[in-house]
């Protein structure tokens, strides 16, 4: 007989999550995001984090150019139980295209991570891979590198959860090419504070 030593947390649906917001339990400034039905507390916004978010947003905006827009720390919809707010993501079209509902499939997601590094590599990478996000970067402030996660891979003999099959770690001197805008490339040093 199975014995669960860890109690099971209630998983929220996106519909319930939106009702929490409508009824004022959560507001836009709360550092909370819905991932896999859990109301996760986001990494604190200390100034290196904030600076990195702004630098990344600026660099990817320039690299993607016309026909795309960049949103920072705004909701996207992944599935019925996930409405995360990635630090930076690049979405096709213009903001007006998303008046009625949040974007669902960004071409690029970037998380800036310090204390949240385990979360970014673990639960978030799994959720993004499962949603077939093709290009997911973690700007790792602990080791001062950029981790490019590509090739979403389903669970199987090699992995317990969804994840990325190709993970490349890039130092400050490296450049990175965008999967969705292959003609552009970004110097990793331009992303870091």
């Amino acid at each position: 007989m199975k014995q669960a030593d860890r109690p099971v947390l209630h998983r929220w649906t996106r519909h319930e999550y939106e009702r929490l917001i409508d009824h004022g339990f959560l507001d836009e400034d709360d550092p909370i995001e819905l991932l896999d039905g859990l109301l996760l507390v986001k990494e604190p916004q200390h100034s290196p984090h904030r600076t990195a978010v702004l630098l990344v947003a600026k660099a990817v905006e320039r690299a993607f150019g016309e026909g795309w827009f960049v949103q920072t720390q705004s909701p996207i919809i992944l599935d019925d139980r996930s409405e995360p707010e990635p630090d930076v993501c690049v979405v096709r079209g213009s903001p007006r295209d998303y008046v009625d509902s949040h974007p669902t499939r960004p071409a690029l997601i970037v998380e800036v991570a310090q204390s949240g590094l385990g979360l970014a590599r673990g639960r978030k990478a799994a959720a993004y891979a499962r949603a077939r996000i093709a290009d997911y970067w973690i700007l790792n402030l602990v080791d001062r590198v950029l981790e490019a996660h590509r090739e979403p891979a389903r669970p199987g003999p090699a992995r317990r959860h969804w994840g990325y099959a190709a993970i490349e770690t890039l130092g400050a001197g490296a450049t990175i090419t965008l999967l969705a805008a292959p003609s552009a490339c970004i110097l990793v040093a331009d992303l870091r504070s």
Partner: protein
Amino acid sequence: MRVMASYETRTRRFSRAEYERLIDLGVFQPGEAIELIGGELMVAEPQGTAHYTAIMKTAKALEAAFGPGWHVRTQGPIGLDDDSEPEPDVAVVPGSPDDYGRAHPSRPALTVEVAESSLGADRQRKGSLYARAGLPDYWILNLVDRVLEVYREPAPDPAAPFGWRYARREVLDASAQVTPLAAPGSSIFVSRLLP
């Protein structure tokens, strides 16, 4: 710098007042088995036939043992503290149902959890939570080993999940008898509680 392993489990906490508002607003599905434990919304274990039968047998035995002046509740909410509203499988509270028309009872004289898959959680987290609230008599009807675990004498313990635990633990098999602290004249065979 080391990444805190605990980070991943940090989720939004709810107070009991918020939790009761969520219920009033009908945010949860009707019949969803949710309890608020130390600010976290926990999902209760699914009811198997043995679990349900054990609850019914325990409630009946406790009703007989406590007699008039007591009210035996099954899976009813307890207003335990500012961030906890558990729904123990069986709880014995003073008075009658009418006494709790405006507020849930907060201090059962006896609290019982029937445990199969929830055994670890019932011992660790719930045990610590109930000890912190000062509940004097806490029983776990352990269906895995077919024994009754009796916990008494709440005492501080910084290593426990909520800073308290029960100092005394007694394990009684089916042939033993148990006497509730609040009904010292009665004794119940453990076999009468087991499914």
